[in-house]
């Protein structure tokens, strides 16, 4: 893997910026170069929010990317806006709990997952963002499961009671991602 870019998008408050941060932390831990560039605009809670994470072995050139290799979406407007921009052969992960439409990208791997329900089973519906992250980590070989879990534990260190549910949500997503990768092969 020379370099990759992931765009994570949803409504503000859904935690996609945090998912991106965890991915960036995990990749950095593995000794890679990373950039985490959020959309920042005159937006508020409930508005759209997205972040682009670039991961590379050498210095990241442009952190501003219009055509990412992977897209994780938590809402319909983001899917409509960004799905056409994913690079051919890339990955699209759609939160089926919140996005009723399909991604019209036969040239990409598209994974639909009811992230909210999966997260609820894991212990908290609020960890849907970690289910999404899990799917990506499971599908790609950018970072490994253990490192990412360590980053989740670190992130929630001051709120330790939330760690088990969040890690469980991530793991469930991870399994789905691994399964999807197996199916593709």
């Amino acid at each position: 893997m020379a370099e990759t870019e992931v765009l994570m998008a949803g409504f503000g408050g859904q935690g996609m910026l945090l998912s991106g941060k965890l991915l960036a932390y995990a990749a950095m831990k593995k000794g890679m170069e990373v950039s985490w560039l959020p959309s920042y605009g005159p937006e508020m809670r409930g508005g759209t929010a997205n972040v682009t994470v670039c991961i590379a072995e050498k210095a990241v050139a442009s952190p501003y990317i219009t055509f990412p290799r992977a897209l994780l979406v938590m809402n319909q407007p983001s899917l409509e806006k960004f799905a056409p921009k994913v690079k051919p052969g890339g990955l699209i992960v759609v939160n089926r709990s919140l996005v009723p439409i399909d991604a019209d990208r036969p040239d990409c791997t598209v994974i639909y997952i009811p992230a909210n329900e999966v997260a609820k089973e894991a212990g908290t519906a609020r960890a849907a963002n970690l289910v999404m992250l899990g799917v990506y980590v499971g599908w790609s070989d950018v970072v490994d499961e253990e490192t990412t879990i360590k980053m989740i534990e670190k992130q929630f260190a001051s709120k330790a009671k939330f760690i088990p549910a969040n890690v469980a949500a991530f793991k469930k997503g991870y399994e789905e991602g691994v399964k999807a990768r197996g199916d593709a092969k």
Partner: protein
Amino acid sequence: MARVLMKGNEAIGEAAIRAGCLHFFGYPITPQSEVPEYLAKRLPELGGQYVQAESEVAASNMIYGSAGVGIRVLTTSSSPGISLMAEGISYIAACELPVVIVNIMRSGPGLGGILPAQSDYLQATKGMAHGDFHLIVLAPSSVQEAVDMVILAFELAEKYRNPTMVIGDGMIGQMMEPVEFPDQEIGPPLDPGDWALTGCKGREKRIVNSLYLDPEECNQQNIRLEKKWEKITKAEQRWEEYKCDKPYDLLICAFGMVSRICKTAIDSLSEEGYRIGLFRPMTVNPFPYDACAKLVKKSKRVLDVEMNMGQMIQDVRLAAEGSKPIEFFGKAGGVVPSPDEVIDEIRKVMKKAGIKKPKKKTSPKKKIGTAAKKKTSKKTAKKSAAKSSGSPKRSKIRRKR
């Protein structure tokens, strides 16, 4: 020290502390508010002072007073706020006080918008405020460089007793990247030298003042400032040359974040066989005219890319002295030019200039998004494939000696 993942604005705040700056005066404005937010928490913990002024005008006078008594001081703001500070900055330059000002630029004119821009280049390098004076201006292109340049800014400000500015766009302030800080947790305090107002008991009194009613005295003051600037111009030019060590047809000039967008475009087109170099001034004032001129000379054409309507291009033109046509591509208002748009623009400029890629086999095309347009050369390849993306990035950071 281990690398940490940090937002540009917070890293700037931490860099100031590492440089030994424990005093901050400012006023919040997007997209730099995380700097005051970070320092509001940290400085009181460290025994420093954080003051949220009633306005930027007041903040600029607070840093004026603070530096006047020999205390290392920082202010940060964004475009409209910097304009409000202009008056104070002119006074500070007149009194030759070492302050560091960070401008995380947003779009303008007027209130403009809160999204990234490079629209204050001319303000920072040419026309900050009234009177004859120059700011030293540094332009980082990454969070790490923002940290290094804030620390360097304090060094230069104190070495020359000259206000020094760091200009970054909103992206640098908002994005997170891994950074490494110097080991020292807090730098040593500022040396008050023979100029700071430290209480004149037992010594001759000192005066910090910018008013000279005697014209000849004021003339001498201007001459002194200009001589100092000549010294700075000779000693402090810094720039980066990217892929300029081999022959190139097109030279791209860009500063700050935009240079990285251009690097992605250059890397992509290099894989197709095009020969493109990049010149990036790291000190935009003093601008490395000679270095730029040398690189321009070796190119067939120059493309200047900025996040504004064309500001640094004036300096590139001065450097080129009419020797080459200089093309411009820019976006403003908070719109960031994407690598693909830069690629399209490069193709357009090359076509217009009649520049074709040299005839040799290249590694497979690396697409960035939209399908790359087929290029004219259909000659069969003779040489084996050029090294693809695995080749080392040929970047050189230089400093005038």
